[in-house]
């Protein structure tokens, strides 16, 4: 069996490691930053600046302006058919568009839609990233992938300063076996002369409503 012979080969290779040694014996120094002293305003400002670096348009709005802003964003793109997760609140939707709840839509249907609106689980100011974890208002992975336009709602309370905080916040999702996707700007490639070009296979446009 390959498993047994591989494990045996590893144990032979590690003969210099004392048999009594366990993972606990290797101390991992964690002197890196895990928290910052920032105000909410500073955090949101950094998040906005960093995500705009990826050519993402951010609209800073109040909660009672969600519906109006969704309408404005979709109108600006002339988007008609918009996919939403099944738990997306009706009160946020605007008139004049065809919103399709993702009740097991086929990949073909997702591909043919004009865009998708989701929430997120956590957002990181330091890197301008948002993370989806199949949680509230987020839906399954395919809906934020196949449509060419992704409008993402980020609540101010979801924004953390640093990457380590984001992984800490996502731990319960992982332990509940949720898939996690970090999104930092629209799909891009650096494969041609190492220049970042926005728009390859994922959504070519990402827009954010930052709700304060």
């Amino acid at each position, binding site marked *: 069996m390959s498993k047994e012979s591989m494990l045996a080969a590893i144990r032979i290779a590690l003969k210099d490691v004392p048999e009594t040694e366990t993972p606990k014996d290797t101390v991992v*120094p964690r002197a890196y930053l895990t928290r910052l002293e920032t105000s909410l305003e500073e955090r949101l400002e950094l998040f906005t600046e960093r995500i705009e670096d990826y050519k993402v348009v951010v609209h800073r709005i109040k909660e009672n302006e969600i519906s109006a802003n969704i309408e404005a964003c979709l109108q600006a793109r002339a988007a008609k058919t918009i996919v939403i997760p099944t738990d997306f609140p009706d009160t946020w939707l605007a008139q004049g568009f065809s919103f399709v709840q993702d009740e097991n839509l086929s990949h073909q249907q997702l591909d043919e839609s004009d865009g998708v609106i989701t929430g997120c689980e956590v957002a990181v100011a330091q890197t301008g990233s948002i993370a989806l974890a199949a949680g509230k208002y987020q839906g399954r992975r395919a809906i934020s992938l196949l449509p060419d336009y992704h409008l993402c709602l980020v609540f101010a309370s979801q924004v953390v300063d640093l990457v380590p905080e984001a992984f800490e916040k996502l731990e319960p999702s992982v*332990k509940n*076996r949720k898939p996690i996707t970090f999104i930092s700007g629209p799909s891009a490639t650096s494969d*041609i*002369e190492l220049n970042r070009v926005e728009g390859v296979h994922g959504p070519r446009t990402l827009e954010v409503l930052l709700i304060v």
Partner: protein
Amino acid sequence: MSVKLPMFEKTAPENVQNSQLRRNLGKVTGAIRVKRARVVDEMPDWEALRDAGYALKTKVLRNLDTYLLELETSVTRVGGKVHWAQSAQEANQIVTDLVKSHGATEVIKVKSMTTEETRLNDALAASGIKAIETDLAELIIKLANEESSHILVPAIHKNRSEIRELFIRTLGEPDLTDEPANLAGAARRYLRKKFLTVPVGISGANFAVAETGTIAVVESEGNGRMCTTLPKVLITMMGIEKIIPTWQDFEVFMQTLPRSSTAERMNPYNSFWTGVHEGDGPQEFHLVLVDNGRTEVLKDEIGRQTLNCIRCSACLNVCPVYERTGGHAYHSVYPGPIGAILTPQLIGIENASSLPYASSLCGACYEVCPVKINIPEVLVHLRGRAIKYKKDHGTLKDKLSPEHLGMQAVAKVFANQSRYESAQKLARMGQGVLAKEGYISSLPGYLSGWTAMRDLKTLPQESFRDWWRKREGQK
């Protein structure tokens, strides 16, 4: 088994003489060095992150058997199936059988160094299965029928106008401009149909978490998300060293990897999946754990750190040798400084004995390595192993080679004080005919190799030992 690679010193010159290649490479490696420095400099805790990354990898490697078993338990618990493969052939066979069992004739692939290493695409093709590479650069080199020349950007040697011509010829897109966005659009149209219909996806893994069974794929284009989300079946092939202990440990590597590889604060997409997610993504997940020479690397106490590598390619971008020769000169799946230490250990020093010499030992690679692999140290160590191999297994011709005999003579001279001092005297007298203004520009005979590329400073008229003795005498 492993095929002997061509000698680097033979293949490097033809690449160095290709001026288009040197222009392309010089431009991109120069640009990414600047970008990387900028995003690293804004991190006040960068060195602490490197230290943590090094310690985490060390911890995994010193307990690799324990962690592999933990990973297997975790992946099985969340609905995946784990396969063990000692060799490349075995790994390829496992994947081929899985694809066949679903009756698939096509698979979509995320760029993966491990499947390049095992030559999975060839194995699949031999069974009538077409592997469709979905990473843009990987697509470019497959369409051009070329080999990769960079870990992260396999088509780094091609500029935009070369890519435009290739796409016009192979993708039937006559109206393309050489705007990168336009070229990327052509790839999007070509691959979208495949993403929607092909039933099996194949990926590598950037990381696998022993604690939770989570696999991570880090990418930019969204092809990774497509391949790991849309197909019914997902097969991931990973080297056994790709483990990290816990979910929280991503806080280290998800900071160091993007900044070191594409020089971004974060790359566009990171996918983390934990087995099979009901109603979301592939409903069948297989993880193939590949050794293929890694336990040989593990065995060497100095070489072991090579397995810390997270395939960021920062060492390629800073290497003065890589920048001039490009990746093809290495004739190795892994080029650049990391390739110069990883490949000889994976396939045997006897098959890649010249790669540890493909370096000036300047140390830039060690300085940028996010997991602190001391590449110069391993290079020197492997040079020693290459010489020892030649000594132990070489022919009589090797044993009588001027280098070997010369080194033996030098060893004798250095071992004895009076022999050393007389040799110095002899050299000082002998250099007279060769020296010009304090330098020797051309040594005779076998030694001419040394001065072919550089001048040698002459020996001073008085040695340190002479000076010291004189000084003692004056007291």
